C-alpha cells in the first residue's frame, strides 16, 4: 500500500517551484503512484475566490494536504508560502512532511527562508537532476514504492489491447 506524505515546495516567487513540482509529479505518476498536485494555479482556480488572501490559501493548501496525506495519498504542494511560521505549522500538523527549498540565491524581503528543508535545489540546475535528487531523498525517507514502471505490457494491459483490437475488428 502506498504511503501518504506531503512534498512541500518552498521558495521565493518565481523560483521555479511549480515547474519542478510538475516534473516530480510526473515521475511519481509514472511509477504508478496516486499523487495529487496542489499548485498555486490549481488552488486559486478550485479553492479560492478573488478575495482569498495568500495566507488563507496557504492554510487551505495545508488542510487539504493533511487530509490527503492521512488517507495515504502522496500530495505535492507548490504554493507561495512566504512565512516560515505558516509552513512550520503545516509541518507540525501533517508529520509526514518533506520540504524542498528552491534556492534561487536571491534575498527577497517577503520570503522567509526555511531553517530546515529536507532537500535544497538550485532551480537553475537541470530539472531532471533536481527531480532525481528530490525523489532520492523521498525514497530514503521511505515514502516511495519499490521498482519503476515496466516498459513491457502487463497481463492486464494485454487483455485491454486484445479487447480494443477486437472492438475495431482487427483481430
Amino acid at each position, binding site marked *: 500500500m502506498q504511503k501518504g506524505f506531503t512534498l512541500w515546495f518552498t521558495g521565493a516567487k518565481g523560483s521555479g517551484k511549480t*515547474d519542478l513540482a*510538475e*516534473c516530480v*509529479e*510526473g*515521475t511519481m*505518476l*509514472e511509477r*504508478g503512484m496516486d*499523487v495529487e*498536485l496542489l499548485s498555486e494555479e*490549481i488552488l486559486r482556480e478550485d479553492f479560492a475566490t478573488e478575495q482569498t488572501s495568500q495566507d488563507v490559501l496557504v492554510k487551505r493548501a495545508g488542510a487539504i494536504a493533511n487530509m490527503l496525506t492521512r488517507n495515504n495519498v502522496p500530495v505535492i504542494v507548490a504554493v507561495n508560502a512566504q512565512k516560515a511560521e505558516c509552513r512550520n505549522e503545516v509541518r507540525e500538523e501533517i508529520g509526514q512532511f518533506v520540504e524542498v527549498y528552491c534556492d534561487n540565491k536571491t534575498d527577497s524581503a517577503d520570503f522567509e527562508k526555511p531553517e530546515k528543508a529536507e532537500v535544497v535545489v538550485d532551480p537553475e540546475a537541470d*530539472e531532471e537532476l533536481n527531480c532525481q535528487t528530490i525523489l532520492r531523498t523521498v525514497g530514503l525517507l521511505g515514502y516511495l514504492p519499490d521498482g519503476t*514502471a515496466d*516498459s*513491457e*505490457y502487463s497481463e492486464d*494491459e*494485454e487483455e*485491454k*489491447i*486484445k*479487447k*480494443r*483490437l477486437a*472492438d*475495431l*475488428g*482487427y*483481430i
Partner: protein
Amino acid sequence: MGFFSRKKKTQAKVMVVGLDGVPCSLLKTFINKGITPNIKRIIGDKLPLHMSVVYPEISAVSWPSFMTGRDPGGHGIFGFTDLLPNSYDMYFPNYTNLDAPTIWDRLGEMGKKSIVINQPSTYPAKKIEGALISGFVAVDIFKSVQPSKYMGQLKRMNYKVDIETDKARQDADFLFKELDKALKNREKALEIIKKKEDSWDYIELVVTGTDRLQHYQMDAIMDEKHERHQQAMDYYSKVDALIGRLYDGFCKETGTDGENFIMLSDHGFTEIRQEVYINSWLEENGYLSFEGDERTLANISPDSKAFSLDPGRIFIHREGRFPKGCVAEQFADSLRDEIQQKLKSLTFDGDPVIKDVFTPDQIYNGKHIGKAADLIAWAHYGFDLKSATTKGEIFRKTDLTGMHTQDDAFLWAGGDFADGVHITELADFIVGKFK
C-alpha cells in the same frame, strides 16, 4: 546585393496533421461539398494526392512506415499482433519493437525539437527531444507521455488515449460524444505542451477519431439518407475547424504561407461488403485443423500446412519455424505458390475477392524480412480479411461497416510528389527540410 546584406536563412518549422484512415476520395468529396472549408482554403488549387501505403494496410504498420521511411522489412513491425519466435504465443508489437529511427529521433540528433501528439504506434512513450504523447494502442496514460512532467496536467484534464471502443461500437450517441471529447483533448494537450516548451521545430498531431468513426459508421458516412449522416459530417467539419486553427497558428508563428504544413492519412477506407475469414478458407481447403475443442493457434494440429494472422498474412507451417511445423523446407515454396494461386481464385457471388497475394521479397526490404509471413494477401475493396480462428463460414458480416484500403490514403504537402506517392517517401522529405 551588398557584402553585408546576405539573406538570413529562416529556421525551418514543419507541422504535420494526420487524419487516421481518411481516404483521398472521401476527402475530395468533402472538399467539393463544403464540409471541410478550411482544408479547401488551405489547399487552394493543389488537390490532395492519392497515396499508397504498406501491406498490410493497418495503422500499426503504416504509421511506423511514415515515421521511419521504411516498410516493415526495415522497421520490424508487421501487424498489430505477431508470434514469438518458434512459438504460437501471440504478442503485441509496440514502440520498443520499432527498429528504425523515427522523424523525431533524426531531428533530435540535429538538435531539433519535436512535439508529437497522439501518434499511433508510439506506446509506451520514450523520451524524445521535445514531447510525445502516444496514440493507439496506448492503454495507460501514465506510460503514454514523455516527459513525465506533463502527466499531471493530462490527468487533470481527463485526457484519454483512446475512446472506449467497446461502448462506442454498440452506442452511436456515445461514439459521437467520445469523438468530440477526444478531438478537444488533442488540441488542448498540444496547447499545454506548446506553452511549456520554450520552442519547437516539428509538430505532429494525429486525429484517430476519423478511423473509429469510419469503422463503425462508414454506411452513415457514405449514405446521405442515413439517419447519422449529418452527425458524421458534423464531426468531419469539427476536424476541419481544428485543422484551420492549427494552420492559421502555424502560418502566424512561422511568418510563412504554410509551405511546410503537411496533411496525410495512413490508409484509406471503404465500406465492407463481406468479412473474409482466411483461417476458415485454409481449413476448408485442407491446410489447417485444430486439436481438441479450443481453436487457438497453440492447438494447431501437427499436420496443418498453413495458418493466418490478421490481416491477410499467411504462414507456412514450416519445420523449424514453428514447434509443430510439418512442412519441410524443400516443400515450403511449392506449397506457398499453391496457396497463393488458390487464394487468388477465391470469389464471392462471382466477384474476385483477392486483388493480389505477395511474397515478402516483393513488398519488403530490410533486415527484418525473415520475420514476415510467407504470403500477404491484398483484397479487393469491400472484402475485409480476417484471421480469427472461430469456427464458421469463410464469408461473414458483423456490425462493422468500414474497412481499410491500401491505395487511397491521401497526402497534401509541398515537394514534387505525384499521385501514387508512397508513405515511405515522407520521412526523408520532412527531415530534409531541416538540412
